[in-house]
């Protein structure tokens, strides 16, 4: 079903909206949350919270695209949950992907005035300089925390190729950040 129709259902306050949203995006949202939380129960909780969040947000919002809107809600809720979990979850997909990215991102210091939004702006500019496929590769790995294998299947590449491409992208990102004044 088209996203606009789903949004109309939310505006109509029909609970069918939740069902339709879930049937269309649950697989994707599950992946977003599970890659961060690495726990089924926490993931399902986040998904339920996502649906509730969307229900409360629409109306008045009329997000476009809807997919990104719900993915963001899921990711933010998952991050919140992840941080609130006292037992640190090591070696899950989220940690692994972020640890990959860490060496090419500057360490925030007390003196540093950079905030996350500024970094996001520059990363956004960097993404614009990439090809669409490399952009997707970057986002799937570092935003969705997808595994190399999953990305390889998605983009019909070999795992080795994905790993090499990501390595190149990270190097490019590091250079780009340095050029923009971020000292890594």
């Amino acid at each position, binding site marked *: 079903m088209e996203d606009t129709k789903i949004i109309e259902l939310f505006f*109509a*306050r029909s*609970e069918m909206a*939740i069902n339709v949203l879930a049937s269309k995006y649950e697989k994707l949202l599950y992946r977003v949350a599970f890659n961060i939380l690495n726990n089924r129960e926490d993931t399902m909780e986040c998904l339920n919270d996502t649906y509730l969040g969307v229900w409360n947000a629409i109306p008045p919002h009329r997000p476009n695209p809807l997919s*990104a809107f719900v993915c963001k809600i899921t990711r933010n809720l998952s991050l919140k949950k992840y941080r609130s979990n006292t037992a640190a979850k090591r070696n899950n997909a989220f940690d692994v992907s972020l640890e990959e990215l860490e060496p090419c991102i500057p360490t925030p210091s007390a003196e540093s005035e950079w905030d996350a939004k500024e970094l996001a702006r520059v990363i956004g500019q960097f*993404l614009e300089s990439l090809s669409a496929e490399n952009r997707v590769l970057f986002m799937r790995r570092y935003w969705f925390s997808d595994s190399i294998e999953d990305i390889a299947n*998605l983009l019909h590449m070999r795992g080795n190729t994905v790993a090499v491409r990501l390595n190149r992208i990270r190097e490019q990102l590091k250079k780009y950040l340095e050029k923009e004044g971020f000292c890594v």
Partner: protein
Amino acid sequence: MMERKKDWIADALSELDDKYIDEAVEYVKPKKSFKYIKQISVLAACLLLFVGVGVAVRMGVGGNKTASMEASPGVAKPKEETSAAAAAPMETEAAAELEAAPEATEDAGLEEEQGMSQVTTTENSSVILDTMESQLKAYPNELDEEVLYDMYVCAHGSVVSGQKVWDVFYESVNAGENAQVEIMEYTVEGDPIITSIHYENDRFYIVVDSSRDTFGGNEKYTSYVYDYWKVIDEPQEDGFVLRTVHFANAPLDVFDSEEDIVGYVREQSENSGMEIRTILYVFIEN
């Protein structure tokens, strides 16, 4: 510090523009396994050739009677056991969690058992009906086993499969919980007709999908809204099997018994020159 850095990176990524997320989502490839689907489609097609015929009747009452009936010239008699059909509830855990969420939908109010209430097709109703139509359109032209598994399938006035689905739907409606079911019947020629019934906020939304009926009319999808429901399980001697009867603002004194309904249906049938041997369910609207 390392944790702080990780959080910082994660937060920065969260701030990225939606278009990048959307782009990455759109790259998701559709499911494969076409080969398997094709195989079971062939099986389903074979099944369609051999299964019996069901009949759906929809009538108008109260000076605006319009009958649309499909008759079975077959000789199949309805089974003795006629209790329910099948249904597929659409309730998810999320929906259940939101049960207590505020609802702005207009309340038509399912009144007393013998009560009547005004049916108005509102803007909200059309959104729901449009959604149901879209869901029906999403089904493949050749219905495979995977699709049929979630439906209540009937032929010759008896249940082929999906009894449990119906039971869940029936129980949900009686409990006042939102639910949805797809009912599939077959025409005389063996073409499938799907009727989707969605129950929400004391109201029934119904969309009939005749798109696979090669002998049907031009109208492939027809919609109805009802706010009264009565289920009749008793089998009829003359071959009528009435399972569910949905009234909307109907003069119930006319139909205060199963016999009356059967008689009315028979009359409609004779007037239209069609023979009806089995009737799965009857919808009566104003």
